[in-house]
């Protein structure tokens, strides 16, 4: 069996048994929801209804209700799109890349992070769709036979690559998530007593049996899906960056974009995981499964990706000067010192300077500080996309058309609305779905449970008895 070095901190604290893992994860599903859950759900529903109202108004009136003008043709919508896609990168990254590297600490966060991914990608997909103005014609982006002389979408265009990348990413993440959920739904199915719950989880669990062959297939399918999802994660955000990088706009036309966007996505995704999981572990009393060590690992990922992002910002600045192209140099000078200096310096502070504080062990193992930082990073990464998009556009080649972008209430409403919808979905998930992977946690209990590592799992002397074999 798998053995872990004694000096490694156990991943599961407390004196847990297999039954405890089931109980701890299913308790929120079986018990009545606390008042705060209803309160949060109410708030999220109200915000999402406001957002939906804004979208309906937008579709009825037109994209002119946004603050776009003749110079700034892309602003909050694409900023929000990239922001949400970025957040949606952590889930699959955690389950796929960390699975390939056999990082067992992922079990504390993978299920909830994948849910976050799926909901975030849903929110991301909304923005290009509503930007089309005619939502009901959204299916035109797919290469379907049509009556317009069979004119096909342009397969040379990064925007079409994006359609394929985002839809593939969404559906593959959904499949990956659901295949992991099936055994856990079976656990719930075999436990709950309420007839309605029994029936629903029976349908959701697809009749899972848990026989040896099924587990054999389960493990291989997880591995192969991880192998497929890993390059997929990298390709998706590379393609999102191509939306900008293949254009000829100074400030966008840079070859550094794919790696810079991918690490930025991981950076923001982990920050969002921190925000959500730090609340979830407290609310659902999952401190034994997700403790300081897990938070520290995530903070290390944040510091690495944050530093990559920082290097990318500085490289961009250097190359803009070194290229000798005056338009390119001006684009970056204007970012830092032009009318949008406040956005640029917020981005720099939030994304480059503040994550460096995690070099201090005291700070990266502090839960309060981690939570605070995760919010800062979420804000910083929104500013990053805003800076890239709006400051590159607002001063074009003709000074008479230089403008300043002001968001309208519709811009703000749609963005707030997606946050509302995201939290509605996430709150429902956390109430009715197992937030930790029950089956997978059980596989690490004996190798990384505190009680087993210290040799008193299942009572005194158990460990000696079993190492004799």
């Amino acid at each position, binding site marked *: *069996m*798998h053995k872990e070095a004694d000096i490694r901190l156990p991943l599961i604290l407390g004196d847990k*048994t*297999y*039954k405890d893992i*089931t109980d701890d994860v299913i308790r929120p599903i079986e018990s009545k929801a606390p008042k705060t859950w209803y309160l949060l759900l109410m708030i999220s529903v109200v915000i999402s209804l406001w957002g939906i109202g804004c979208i309906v108004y937008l579709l009825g009136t037109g994209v002119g209700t946004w603050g776009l003008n003749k110079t700034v043709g892309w602003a909050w919508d694409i900023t929000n799109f990239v922001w949400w896609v970025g957040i949606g990168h952590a889930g699959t990254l955690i389950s796929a890349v960390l699975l390939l590297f056999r990082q067992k600490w992922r079990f504390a966060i993978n299920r909830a992070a994948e849910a976050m991914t799926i909901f975030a990608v849903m929110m991301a997909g909304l923005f290009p769709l509503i930007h089309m103005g005619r939502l009901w014609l959204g299916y035109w982006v797919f*290469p379907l036979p049509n009556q317009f*002389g*069979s*004119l*096909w979408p*342009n*397969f*040379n*265009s*990064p925007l079409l*690559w994006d359609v*394929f*990348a985002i839809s*593939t990413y969404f*559906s*593959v993440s959904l499949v990956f998530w659901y*295949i992991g959920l*099936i055994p856990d739904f*079976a*656990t719930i199915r*075999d*436990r709950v007593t309420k007839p309605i719950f029994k029936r629903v989880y*029976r*349908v959701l*669990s*697809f*009749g*899972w*049996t*848990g*026989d*040896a*062959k099924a*587990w*054999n*297939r*389960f*493990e*291989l*399918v997880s591995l*192969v*899906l991880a192998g*497929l*999802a890993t*390059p*997929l994660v990298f*390709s998706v955000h590379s393609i999102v960056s191509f939306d900008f990088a293949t254009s000829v706009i100074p400030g966008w036309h840079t070859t550094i974009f794919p790696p810079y966007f991918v690490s930025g996505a991981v950076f923001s995704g982990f920050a969002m995981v921190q925000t959500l999981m730090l609340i979830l572990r407290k609310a659902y009393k999952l401190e034994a499964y997700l403790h300081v060590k897990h938070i520290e690992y995530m903070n290390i990922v944040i510091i690495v990706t944050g530093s990559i992002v920082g290097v990318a910002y500085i490289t961009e600045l250097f190359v803009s000067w070194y290229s000798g192209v005056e338009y390119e140099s001006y684009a970056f000078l204007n970012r830092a010192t032009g009318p949008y200096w406040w956005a640029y310096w917020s981005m720099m502070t939030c994304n480059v300077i503040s994550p460096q504080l995690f070099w201090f062990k005291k700070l990266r193992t502090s839960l309060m500080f981690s939570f605070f930082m995760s919010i800062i990073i979420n804000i910083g990464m929104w500013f990053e996309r805003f800076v890239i998009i709006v400051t590159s556009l607002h001063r074009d080649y003709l000074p008479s058309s230089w403008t300043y972008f002001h968001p309208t209430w519709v811009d703000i409403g749609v963005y707030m609305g997606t946050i509302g919808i995201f939290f509605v979905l996430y709150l429902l998930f956390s109430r009715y779905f197992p937030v930790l992977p*029950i*089956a*997978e946690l*059980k*596989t690490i209990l*004996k190798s990384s449970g505190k009680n087993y590592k210290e040799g008193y799992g299942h009572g005194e002397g158990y460990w000696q008895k079993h190492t004799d*074999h």
Partner: protein
Amino acid sequence: MSDKIIYAMYDDDDHLLNGAKDLVAKGVHVTDVYSPMPIHGIDPIIGVQPTRLGIAAFLYGITGTMLAALGIRFMMIVDWPMNIGGKPSFSLLENIPSFVPIFFEFTVLCAAHGMAITYLIRNKTLPGMPPRNPDPRTTDDKFVMEIRTSENSKFSDEELTKLVKNTAFIEIEEKQI
């Protein structure tokens, strides 16, 4: 022929693993094992063959690449060649660099979904299927071994039960079918 199934329940995966090892060493054929999580190392003991789903995924993947290549070639080269930014549009090979992203995405799409659907069908896990585990506790913290008398004709029913009782079981259930 009447068949009897013996279900032996264990409360620990190591007990089941050692039990299965002992039984198999004595020549008993263990039909199946039901557990709340994968038991590493059980497959070679009870003779579960490695799954071929990986090969299936590969085949689905190259099917996806082929379909993407054929489809894009038809749309962009044969049916309606478009001149976009002067990019070559006369043959697939000349235009291929800008098609690579969608080749890749479609390969992943087909491989992942093809494998997932095959996995669900092979496991007989589809929406609405009834649960088929022998005891509801096997998805919680109990481990069950299934032994059929028809597959162990060299032992009498009593001998088989006795052998199973030598392992560290907690419950035994016998079912006549």
